[in-house]
């Protein structure tokens, strides 16, 4: 799962997908005659459009109703650049001179379309990525409508509803094939890049991905612009085939058709995009014959318009009910060809073994001298939720290599404290320092980038990503540290499995591996042993201890399993009702009267510090 290795794997996957597509398509192009060849070109252009859409929608998980806008930008840019000046002056007399005289070639126009679309998306994107996901979906819809009305009314550039014509028909079957193949490669490679991976992580769980250092807005922005540029280029290819077009073509009908292709095929997979384009293409071809009127068994059927749209709509409804993840689901081509998949895995393992597993020396070591002994200091942290005081000025600090247990009754503020430290909840007052650096009030992904990692009370792994992808998504994780982390938590053998398929205990371990892979200065574990049996939690305990020693990081651990906490921790801090009531070694804390009262009420209690350091708390009732 090294980045180089996975990129190579993605390349091979794209190559296989493209080859299969060619095997299907080439006979049509070579022997199919003119009509079939032109149908094939339409299919290939649809592939470019859907794959471009998939690059954003599939990886980010955010539905976009607005991508057809960028197709429109690409098409109009192409029209301005390529329609012969004589025809152009007739249709668009008020076009700026440099456009009026332009007569560009095929490739430069496609690239210009991509650049202009990308720039436009870059401007729109600044606003868009600040929104919540649902608002963003609505905003893409607004974008589609706004730009449709702009195309319709800005006649100087678009000739309004009449439309423009005269784009030279420069597309050939082989150019269309080349276009589709290039797009499949770009999309499949993008999915495998670190940004693509982080985007998919944010799709699975936005909150935990930012808590691990992923700048969700940034990766969404990059994908938005990138995918819009692809869409622009695809729109340019489209216009080279269709020659004449008007604003009505960049509206709902095509948006619906493209989304239908994507959803039917499987929106999280590049292969799915291609398959979806093929199926919808086939249905369209079939039923547009019906629209023209056909005779079945000698009976002349009436010409029915709108059949294609109707059939596609029904297809989508059935697909959403029976197979909401699409026909190929999340799988790529290699998942359908087991020998290919296992070959890719083997070659990846080999390339990983070839990397010397050197102990990574990260920035922690250098900053160690200057930072004093604490890796984390929280001073006077306070937080109220609508009047209810959750934390009333708590101090907390952890030294390098130290394990601090954080205990307290339910509602005492333990999780709130972790959330304040990791920047997930805004604090009312107080200060947080990591390695002596003030991170108070910074967003969680920046806090994480400064060396804080955490796990969650309710497991928040990236469910539909591979185990290895989970570990490698955070930006601080390197190939060596990620690999080491997988090894230390015993996940190497399952690294190519989907995280979802792991057992509960293994999912907890994966969350810890994901945190440790970031080479943190301090790691927060929120009930890591919850729901584990004694055997599992004993193994986990010794693992945490050796991890802390090995990485030299500070650990804060919340757990209700006092047996585990007492044996594991160097120091224990006890919270009650938002305040610290005791801090000290396990022995000090377990004999503290206030702690006993908080845990067991006022009933007389007795703590038996057993012979093997085992602690048992018993009340007189037992």
């Amino acid at each position, binding site marked *: 799962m090294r980045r180089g290795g996975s990129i190579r794997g993605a390349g091979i996957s794209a190559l296989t997908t493209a080859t299969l597509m060619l095997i299907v398509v080439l006979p049509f192009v070579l022997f199919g005659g003119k009509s079939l060849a032109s149908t094939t070109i339409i299919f290939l252009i649809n592939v470019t459009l859907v794959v471009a859409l998939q690059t954003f929608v599939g990886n980010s998980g955010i539905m976009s109703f607005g991508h057809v806008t960028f197709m429109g930008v690409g098409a109009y840019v192409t029209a301005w650049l390529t329609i012969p000046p004589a025809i152009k002056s007739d249709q668009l007399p008020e076009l700026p001179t440099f456009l009026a005289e332009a007569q560009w070639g095929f490739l430069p126009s496609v690239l210009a379309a991509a650049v202009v679309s990308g720039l436009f998306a870059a401007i729109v994107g600044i606003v868009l990525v600040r*929104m919540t996901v*649902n608002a963003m979906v609505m905003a893409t819809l607004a974008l589609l*409508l706004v730009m449709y009305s702009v195309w319709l009314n800005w006649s100087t550039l678009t000739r309004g509803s009449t439309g423009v014509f005269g784009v030279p028909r420069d597309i050939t079957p082989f150019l269309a094939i080349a276009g589709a193949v290039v797009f499949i490669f770009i999309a499949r490679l993008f999915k495998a890049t670190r940004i693509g991976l982080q985007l998919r992580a944010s799709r699975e769980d936005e909150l935990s991905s930012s808590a691990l250092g992923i700048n969700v807005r940034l990766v969404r922005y990059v994908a938005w612009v990138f995918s819009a540029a692809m869409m622009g280029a695809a729109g340019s290819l489209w216009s080279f085939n269709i020659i004449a077009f008007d604003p009505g073509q960049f509206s709902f009908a095509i948006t619906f058709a493209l989304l239908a292709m994507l959803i039917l095929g499987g929106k999280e997979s590049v292969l799915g995009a291609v398959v979806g384009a093929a199926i919808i293409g086939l249905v369209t071809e079939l039923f547009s014959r019906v629209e023209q009127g056909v005779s079945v068994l000698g009976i002349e059927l009436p010409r029915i318009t709108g059949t294609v749209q109707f059939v596609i709509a029904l297809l989508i409804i059935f697909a*959403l009910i029976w197979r909401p993840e699409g026909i190929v689901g999340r799988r790529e081509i290699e998942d359908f060809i087991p020998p290919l998949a296992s070959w890719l895995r083997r070659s990846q393992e080999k390339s990983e073994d070839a990397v010397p597993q050197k102990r990574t020396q990260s920035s922690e070591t250098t900053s160690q001298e200057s930072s004093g002994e604490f890796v984390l200091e929280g001073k006077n942290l306070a937080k109220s939720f609508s009047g209810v005081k959750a934390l009333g000025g708590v101090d907390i600090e952890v030294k390098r290599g130290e394990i601090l247990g954080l205990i307290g009754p339910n509602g005492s503020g333990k999780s709130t404290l972790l959330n304040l430290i990791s920047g997930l909840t805004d604090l009312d007052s107080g200060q947080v320092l990591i390695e002596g650096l003030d991170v108070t009030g910074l967003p969680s992904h920046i806090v994480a980038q400064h060396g804080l990692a955490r796990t969650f009370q309710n497991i928040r792994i990236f469910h539909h990503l591979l185990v290895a992808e989970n570990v490698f998504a955070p930006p601080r994780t390197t190939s060596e540290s990620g690999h080491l982390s997988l090894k230390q938590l015993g996940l190497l053998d399952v690294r190519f499995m989907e995280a979802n398929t792991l057992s509960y205990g293994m999912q907890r371990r994966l969350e810890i591996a994901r945190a440790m892979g970031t080479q943190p200065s301090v790691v927060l574990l929120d009930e890591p042993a919850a729901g584990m049996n004694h055997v599992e939690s004993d193994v986990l305990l010794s693992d945490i201890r050796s991890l802390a020693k090995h990485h030299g990081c500070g650990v804060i651990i919340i757990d209700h399993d006092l047996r585990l906490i007492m044996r594991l921790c160097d120091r224990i801090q006890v919270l009650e009702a938002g305040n610290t009531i005791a801090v000290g070694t396990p022995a000090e804390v377990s004999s503290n009267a206030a702690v006993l009262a908080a845990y067991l009420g006022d009933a007389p209690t007795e703590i038996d510090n057993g012979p093997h350091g085992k602690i048992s708390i018993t009340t007189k009732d037992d």
Partner: protein
Amino acid sequence: MLEFIQQLINGFSLGSIYAVLALGLAMVYSTLGILNFAYGELITIVGYTVYFANQAGAPFLLAAGLGITFAVVASLLMQFALFRPLRGASFVTLLFASFALSQALQGVFRQAISPRARGIAVPEVFSTFVTIGDIRIGFLTIATLVTALISMGILAAFMRYSRSGLQMRAAATDLTTTRLMGVRANRVILAAFAISGLLAGVAGLLWLARTTQVTPTTGFTPILIAFIAVVLGGLGSIPGAVIGGYIFGMLEVFLQAYLPIGLVPFQFAMALIAVSVLLYLRPEGLMGRRIEEKV
């Protein structure tokens, strides 16, 4: 000043239609988290019902009553045929499914009826004017305002004082807990769809009284406006939907009235941009609450 008042009344009237429209959409969203794109087709159904009832010689009020009834029935059918099999699906899946349903219904209208527009006969009284002082207001404007306000008043009273209304408000806060308290989820859901259909029926009549024709794609503009109003007001907030509807109605009327001639074609685009800016400043909408995720 006079013109301003006149525009204000126009804006208020148009805003009332939008508010009722948005309210119908918000009823289902707040209970089930579904933004029903096919909601617009309910308006088309009202249109065709009124058209055919008229053709058969029914008086306007009967036709209107039939229209509203059919909208309610169609809304309930949507729940049974589409949303029930999809229960538990994500927001986006449901949105897209209803989008597909909307496309399919448009296909049905196109094939079963006609792709061309059908005129709807509206009583002549709607095109008369009322003069108060120096202000001349269309009867339709007033009728719209009154009908919308009465419908919203009845709904508010129902939600506030009836037991079913209380159950629906509880379901809107937390459907799962409401079920655990012994409220029948199916009843609440059906009520939400029925009310949604009812409001679509009322809004549809008011809408069609303005446009006086129905085509297979009649529902498209109303659903977009309802969408915008609901998002503007804050997804999940019922008063928000009403406020969103009024704001968008005002925005449309005033942009139309005061925009320089050259920019009038961009009126809708500008209104949308204004809404987007608002959403940028307040992503959760005007009345929406920011929901903190529990971690």
